[in-house]
């Protein structure tokens, strides 16, 4: 966006099945460490799908004050944890910044689902008087935004968006627009967890979850063997700041620049009109004022469903030409995290720019030639200045975000 103050990423916090801090997560991504395993949270053997990407070493009581534990679902605990890490990474003294200049924009696809499952059970087994006093706000989709706002004293524009997987990227896009409109700092991203029995079968009901029992073969996006995805839990929170505000508070280290965003919606199937992903990519590039040839890597949505993979490949071919850009999906190691997935990909994109190293799509081996895309199958050392992150949501949501190399003065190139 020409003439606008650049919007920087000054902090990142990750809560992923492969790591609870950014560097551990990144090392696991580069090492191909797979967090997909049998879901052992309950007896999963009675259901048709068994593999999940779970976070195993998260003890909320180590990270959150005790009073927050009874009132929060697991996904809110993960969000509060990631937000605290991101703000600490950004070295923000929130007390020293204007309270109305700090906003929060997050996405969750499922809300506090395990918490609410327990309350539904109490209501129907025991009666309304047994429902928790916290249910009214532990469940709803705005809970993570509200809790982060309270914990860090952020009183500026706040919002919560839902668009299944795409919502996690739309939230960062909304944070970008909020910063462009004048909000100095926006805490943004997405986190999800719905791995209780009801959440699990509800995810399975979508018909796209892999029935495989082999962790290395269950989620194979862009592979000719693709047959679905593995659900996971977690997400990431980022701190976005206007460059002028970051300069003023003396920020020295910047992870990168959020250059542009766009989202579109698909026409109904059978309409004969083109799908919307290509247009979302082109609009995001235009918003970022970055040419397609300048994009060094694409973090794909990579559902792992043949028709959807083929459509994503077609959009990429259309914009970048055949094999025109490296395409990767390190999310195969964590599973798809609903609204939490795209913000984790944004973290990966920024670390790729930092290290000049594209993480591989670990388990994908045989990409159909007609896809015409260059899927990164071994970590690839290559300088990257601009990266494109894609996310789609069930029923036709398309979201595209461009991040770029930069420092506190803005983008390099």
């Amino acid at each position, binding site marked *: 966006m020409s003439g606008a103050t650049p919007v920087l990423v000054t902090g990142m916090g990750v809560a992923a099945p492969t790591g609870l801090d950014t560097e551990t997560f990144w090392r696991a991504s580069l090492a191909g460490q797979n967090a997909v395993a049998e879901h052992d949270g*309950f007896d999963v053997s009675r259901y048709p799908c068994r593999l999940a990407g779970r976070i195993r070493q998260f003890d909320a009581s180590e990270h959150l004050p005790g009073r927050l534990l009874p009132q929060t679902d697991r996904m809110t605990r993960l969000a509060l944890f990631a937000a605290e890490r991101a703000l600490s990474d950004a070295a923000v003294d929130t007390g020293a910044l204007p309270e109305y200049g700090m906003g929060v924009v997050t996405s969750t696809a499922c809300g506090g689902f395990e918490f609410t499952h327990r309350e539904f059970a109490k209501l129907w087994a025991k009666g309304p008087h047994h429902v928790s006093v916290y249910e009214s706000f532990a469940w709803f989709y705005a809970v993570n935004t*509200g809790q982060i706002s309270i914990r860090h004293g952020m009183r500026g524009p706040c919002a919560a968006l839902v668009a299944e997987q795409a919502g996690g990227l739309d939230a960062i896009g909304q944070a970008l627009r909020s910063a462009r409109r004048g909000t100095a700092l926006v805490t943004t991203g997405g986190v999800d967890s719905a791995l209780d029995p009801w959440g699990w079968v509800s995810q399975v009901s979508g018909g796209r979850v892999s029935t495989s029992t082999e962790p290395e073969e269950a989620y194979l996006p862009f592979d000719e063997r693709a047959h679905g995805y593995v659900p996971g839990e977690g997400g990431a929170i980022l701190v976005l700041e206007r460059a002028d505000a970051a300069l003023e508070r003396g920020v020295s280290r910047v992870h990168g620049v959020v250059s542009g965003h766009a989202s579109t919606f698909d026409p109904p199937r059978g309409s004969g009109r083109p799908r919307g992903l290509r247009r979302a990519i082109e609009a995001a590039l235009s918003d970022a004022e970055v040419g397609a040839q300048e994009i060094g890597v694409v973090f794909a949505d990579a559902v792992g469903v043949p028709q959807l993979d083929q459509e994503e490949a077609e959009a990429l071919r259309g914009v970048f030409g055949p094999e025109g850009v490296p395409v990767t999906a390190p999310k195969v190691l964590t599973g798809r995290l609903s609204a939490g997935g795209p913000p984790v990909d944004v973290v990966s994109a920024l670390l790729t720019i930092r290290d000049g190293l594209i993480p591989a799509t670990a388990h994908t081996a045989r990409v159909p030639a007609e896809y015409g895309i260059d899927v990164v199958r071994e970590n690839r050392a290559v300088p990257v200045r601009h990266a494109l992150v894609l996310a789609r949501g069930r029923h036709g*949501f398309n979201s595209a975000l461009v991040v770029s190399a930069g420092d506190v003065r803005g983008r390099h190139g």
Partner: protein
Amino acid sequence: MGVRAPGGCGQKEFWDLLSSGRTATRRISFFDPSPHRSQIAGECAFDPLAEGLSPRQVRRMDRATQFAVVCAREAVDDSGVDLTALEPHRIGVTLGSAVAAATSLEQEYVVLSDTGRNWLVDDSYLSPHMFDYLTPGVMPAEVAWAVGAEGPVTLVSDGCTSGIDAVGHACERIEDGSVDVVLAGATDTPITPIVVACFDAIKATTPRNDDPEHASRPFDRTRNGFVLAEGAAMFVLEEYEHARARGARVYAEITGYATRCNAYHMTGLRSDGREMAAAIEAALRASRTDPGDVDYVNAHGSGTKQNDRHETAAVRRSLGSRADRVPVSSIKSMVGHSLGAIGSLEIAACALALDHGLIPPTANLHEPDPECDLDYVPLVAREQPLRTVLTIGSGFGGFQSAMVLRRPGGVRA
């Protein structure tokens, strides 16, 4: 605009109810409310087949989605805009909802769990639509399909300010040039045992079960909680020149919007109204409106002890001496509190008030509360020429939102 509200169907009946000061709050009929502390609600008479939805649409859509789609169609008809003549990607959808598909979630839960008996739910009873109740991206998607939108489509879920924030979000997308037309508004159908129990648990809803018709008493000394309700309102929002070029009938111009968070408590409000005042001040600044030019304030006025005090303080703090003279009223006294939807219903009420030069009253206000000392237009509507009105909302999570609407000058054909 398209409206579905308790006490009548459609815009005309909605306005008839508001301008007459009648109330639509009754004992809950959707289920036996006798185990609940609060047994009152504002229910809508709504027959989806008679409203033109197909049996398949009725089967797959949650009640809240049905409301939204019906209102969206009605809004398009009412606007006279020929959407098929526009580029689909220049049309967006922003839908607000606080609890989304809560009704369907509960219906499915009761079956899957065998009325709360089984934590390991029985997936042999799984609905293919369960995924869409788990994560409600499908709600704005259905609206997008109904109107042929292929631009940005999203669900804004900011709890009880969703109805203002969704319209505000849509305005920002028009301002930033992403779209020319947005179907924007909000829907909620929360009259289901789990939601009733949520608010029972924190005593937010009124226990005045012996007098349902007079149970919603904003600003009255005897108020003791809000009345839960359902409803929806959708608008065709158009960029000003776009509307003018086609000679559109214009209800109102949205001239300012702002949202702030209190960063204080997920459900509690400080009595000083500080952050809501900040939202009002920011919305007036965006609108370039002097407090002295505000002709009417459509209050959040939920009828809880703390809200009405908080809000009165916020109006005093932001409008200064104008607060002593400006009429303030709460339509929740008549149609109850439909959570995320009500903010859009209140925008509809403001637009109709501008159109008719009539301020809807605060029903059931017989005994003024000494702590609530504004002109609340008790019992009887007031005829008065209106040029600029302010609508405000407050919600769990700490959200405080404000929007300024102005009577269109010379735009109206």
